[in-house]
């Protein structure tokens, strides 16, 4: 490129000129054809859609749900641990529930009335009588 780079302007003037030119370019950039603007809008819509897919379903305007889904994506091992712990906890709870269910059935199906099991003195009394 054969340009004469020796000009009489000082650095401040050159910077001021650059900013002036940048301002003019900015004005120019605002005057695009409708076709171009439409294509840029389409590109933007595609990008936003891809962002939503990558970050999960963004329902909230503040992106709360997106953040949660992204956390899950980036901490898969921790998430798997949490799920496993929840499954174990639910299994233990189910076992307890089934045990209490069995004991209830036992009480209701026994020959003795349920009140007999509530009475704390009944069992020692029964043992005493059977020993005799």
């Amino acid at each position: 490129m054969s340009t004469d780079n020796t000009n009489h302007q000082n650095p401040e003037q050159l910077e001021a000129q650059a900013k002036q030119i940048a301002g003019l370019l900015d004005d120019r950039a605002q005057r695009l054809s409708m076709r171009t603007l439409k294509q840029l809008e389409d590109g933007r819509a595609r990008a936003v859609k891809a962002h939503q897919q990558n970050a999960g379903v963004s329902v909230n305007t503040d992106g709360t749900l997106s953040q949660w889904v992204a956390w899950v994506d980036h901490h898969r091992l921790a998430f798997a641990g949490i799920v496993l712990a929840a499954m174990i906890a639910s299994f233990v709870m189910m076992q307890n529930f089934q045990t209490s269910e069995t004991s209830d059935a036992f009480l209701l199906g026994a020959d003795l009335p349920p009140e007999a099991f509530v009475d704390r003195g009944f069992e020692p009394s029964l043992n005493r009588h059977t020993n005799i």
Partner: protein
Amino acid sequence: MASSEELSTFLQGVERRAFKQTVYAVRDEHVALDIVQDSMLKLAQKYPDKPAKEYPMLFQRILQNTMRDFWRRQKVRNVWTTLLSSFTGNKDDGDDSWDPLETMDVGDERETPSSQLESSQTMQLIERAIEKLPPRQREAFILRYWEELSVAETAEAMGCSEGSVKTHCSRALHTMAALLEQQGLSSEYLGVKS
């Protein structure tokens, strides 16, 4: 992490400038649109977890890299075209040589009033001068003065040292001033006080 709304707002604010910057670099509107759209998509797909404040720098870096990819592909394509044309002897393959003037009138489809004719011509001269800048100087000039990135941010976006950015910017300013003076556009004409 930025929400989709923040991404949309950011892209809406930057897309026009990005398009014009790319047109200055590749000198083809269709290619420029592809590059900008591709860059938007890359930003959304590769950095969904980044905060919105990091978008300007990230987007510029993606845009510059996508332009470089385009140049690389273009270079390979040109080599093959030259090789093939030398074998076939086909002389009608002159379509790859761009005429920058063909893409100068972007967005100038509307009627310009006579009062705006002068400024429109001035803009064309400025745009032509920007297109004539060497790629790295143009990149530094646009990022520093149009995108208003700091020297450090420009260096990161360009993938070079801060010293190189200062050198590129200084050379770009001198080259631009010389080119504009050659076209009869002095700094006083542009409104810069001496």
